[in-house]
């Protein structure tokens, strides 16, 4: 049965998951029992009591109080058990332990931004330590989003101008997928993030040094990864087709016309400015919707993106 459970649900990777899954399987057992009961009775009745002639006479049974009380009260009792079980699990998931590490989460169309207590910020990826509670304090800059980690069994809406909270304690190292589950427009299904669960030593090292790869990777390759992970790909295509923003294909060296009537050539300075002050120069035909990446990308990532764009032909 274990393989079946793993096929139905993602691997249990937080301290909250086992209790939730146990309730899930308890409800499944109750449901399966009642469904099989209903389906068998229908089948048996349809065969055993099939119409033999148009003049069949059937017994006139109007009701049976005892039976009716039984089939109202028994399901009610089962449901009350399920209610308390579910409520109990929900309360555990609602109250974060006092010693939890706090990470600020900001959502905006269509990126996730994470900020650590020391001020370090990351985009669409963040690291947490294994077996230690983490509390997320979440807020949206535009519409409602929702933060969902299937393998942790946690989810909470992220609202504009109001904080919501979520906590978890990861029990499995590795990478865990985050989805946005409140519909937020064109890029909704690309508003993904990833949680890296590290053991304590690796986590401390990451806090101080950041990703090792970021320092050694060739610039264009770093640019490509940044393009995919930092949310650029949601709006900017590589094949020349226009999305929410202009395509990056072959733009380096081109002259672009802006909505304020000015124009400029795409060079290193223009790309850097477009990342840091995206609304300073907006290409004609597009809206002023791009968020700034000031403070979110490390300098080497910006250089990487510039080198990456140079290569796109």
């Amino acid at each position, binding site marked *: 049965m274990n393989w079946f459970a793993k096929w139905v649900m993602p691997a249990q990777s937080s301290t*909250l998951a086992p209790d939730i899954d146990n309730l*899930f399987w308890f409800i499944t057992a109750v449901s399966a029992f009642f469904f099989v009961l209903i389906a068998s009775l229908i089948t048996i009745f349809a065969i055993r009591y*099939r119409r033999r002639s148009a003049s069949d006479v059937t017994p*006139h*049974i109007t009701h049976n109080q005892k039976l009716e009380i039984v089939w109202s009260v028994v399901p009610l009792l089962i449901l009350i058990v399920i209610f308390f079980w579910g409520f109990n699990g*929900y309360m555990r998931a609602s109250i974060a332990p006092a010693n939890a590490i706090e990470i600020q989460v900001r959502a905006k169309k269509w990126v996730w931004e994470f900020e650590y207590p020391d001020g370090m910020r990351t985009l669409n990826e963040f690291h947490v330590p294994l077996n230690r509670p983490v509390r997320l304090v979440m807020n949206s800059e535009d519409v409602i989003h929702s933060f*969902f980690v299937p393998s942790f069994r946690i989810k909470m809406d992220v*609202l504009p101008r109001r904080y919501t909270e979520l906590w978890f304690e990861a029990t499995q190292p590795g990478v865990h997928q985050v989805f946005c589950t409140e519909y937020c427009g064109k890029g909704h*299904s690309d508003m993904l993030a990833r949680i890296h669960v590290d053991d304590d030593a690796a986590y401390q090292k990451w806090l101080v040094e950041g990703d090792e790869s970021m320092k050694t990777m060739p610039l264009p390759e770093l640019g490509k990864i940044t393009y995919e992970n930092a949310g650029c790909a949601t709006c900017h295509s590589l094949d020349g087709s226009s999305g929410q923003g202009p395509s990056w294909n072959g733009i380096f060296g081109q002259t672009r016309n802006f909505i304020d009537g000015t124009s400029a050539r795409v060079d290193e300075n223009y790309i850097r400015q477009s990342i840091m002050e995206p609304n300073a120069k907006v290409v004609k035909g597009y809206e002023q919707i791009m968020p700034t990446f000031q403070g979110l990308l490390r300098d080497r990532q910006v250089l990487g993106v510039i080198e990456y764009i140079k290569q796109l032909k």
Partner: protein
Amino acid sequence: MANVLTAAPRPVQHHAPGENYLNTPKGIRSWLTTVDHKRIGIMYLWSVLAAFFLGGVLALLIRIELLTPKQTIMSAEAYNQVFTLHGAIMVFLFIIPSTPAALGNFVLPLMLGAKDVAFPRLNLCSLYIYWVGTLMAIGSILLGGIDTGWTFYTPYSTSTGGAVSLMTLSVFILGFSSIFTGVNFIATIHKLRAPGMGWFQLPLFVWSMYATAVIQVMATPVLGITVLLLFMERVLKIGIFDPALGGDPVLFQHFFWFYSHPAVYIMIVPGFAIISEIIPVFSKKTIFGYKAIAFSSVAIAVVGFLVWGHHMFVSGQSELAGAIFSFLTFLVAIPSAVKVFNWLATMYRGSISLKTPMLYAISFILLFSIGGLTGIYLGAISVDVHLHDTYFIVAHFHYVMMGGAVIAFLGGLHYWWPKMFGRMYNEKLGAIGCALVFIGFNVTFFTQFLLGTRGMPRRYYNYLDQFQPLHAFSTFGSWILGAGLFLTAAYLLATFRKPMDAPRNPWGGRTLEWETESPPIVHNFDFDPILTHGPYDFRPARTRPNEPVAHRS
């Protein structure tokens, strides 16, 4: 049968042989100005079927797009508009009016032995309002479309482009059509019952229609006000829901679900209504637990108003509110379970005939049971947190809405088709059509429970590769489902190519609509019906105790 009713012909209302409500009087004008509940019901029927067709084609397009993880046939913008329209059309233009306004309009006065509904002109007005609302909905598609989802959640809906304002006005107007039908039915049921028809001699269809009408009248104004506030926020920039203007986006969700959860019962209680007619007739046995079924409809209507917050367990509402809504949600499950057990007990020791309407009724019980049982997962808060806004929800509400409400509507359509049009359809094709729909439906939507438990979020245009096999399987199922529905449309329409051949009472029903001709004459009955037996009394006449003597009026 003859001993059921008095048969005093009204001399003034003689009708020529061959005359019925369909052909008397003739001409398109006579249809557009009619106040006959039967004609209005038929015009509603064709309208909602057209909406069903449109919504169904959009559903097939959605499934084709989801065949591959990235773009398949349309852009992300187009996809967002298509799933929004699919939901809005199916809910507001098809399911909500389907059983009450189309089938109910036709059948309810006949069941009561009445000549028409209480307010015939209001009835016609409701149809015109429905048409105006529909035109505005189509207009909003042509004028830029909407991409908010059928739920119009703020502040996305106040900030996105497109024709959201026109669509919200359309929903506002459609609400009145629903309210008018509800008001009409309440008055009709109170005032126009045949002599001898007390509240507990009412067919259960009528009881459920009554419960539905009460919800329509009480809940729909809240939707009207909500979409009007949304409209005012978009057009006049009054801050109600948009936090940028000082509003509260979660307030919108409370308002919206305060209507839209009862609206689930506006859609499914009429389904119960139809099934409670079909099961006893095709089991040739009296309904088990008449009062339990009647009162459970009313209980659902009342408690259904108090569970809206279960749509919002992860919205940021308080833990206490979540707990209360969770508990009430489990309470409202009981009356639905009671109905299923009653239907099963009705089949016990019956004389079961598996004609097409009964096949749909059995499909309904099975699919609705799955829809109801999966609701338990979602009522349990800790499990709901994982499943909320995933494909598990999509599967669950399709089992209730399509597997429940729409399957019951199709059952009712087959049950009353001979009465409405005087024509029998091909039973063999009926059975094949029902089987294709049942299999196709399960392949399409059961798969989506698994997508949901594995974490696939809803309203996703692109998705991770790991979900593709299940998505492809679901799309494959949608083709079987589509084939079943097209086959059904084909053999039903084919009945118009042959002469009228339906007897008055092809299924052996005991309710009053089977006592008049098929199709009925303009004034429904050529005598004043007086009730002398219950709606589900299948005992032979001589064994019925205390048979009242039929008296002439």
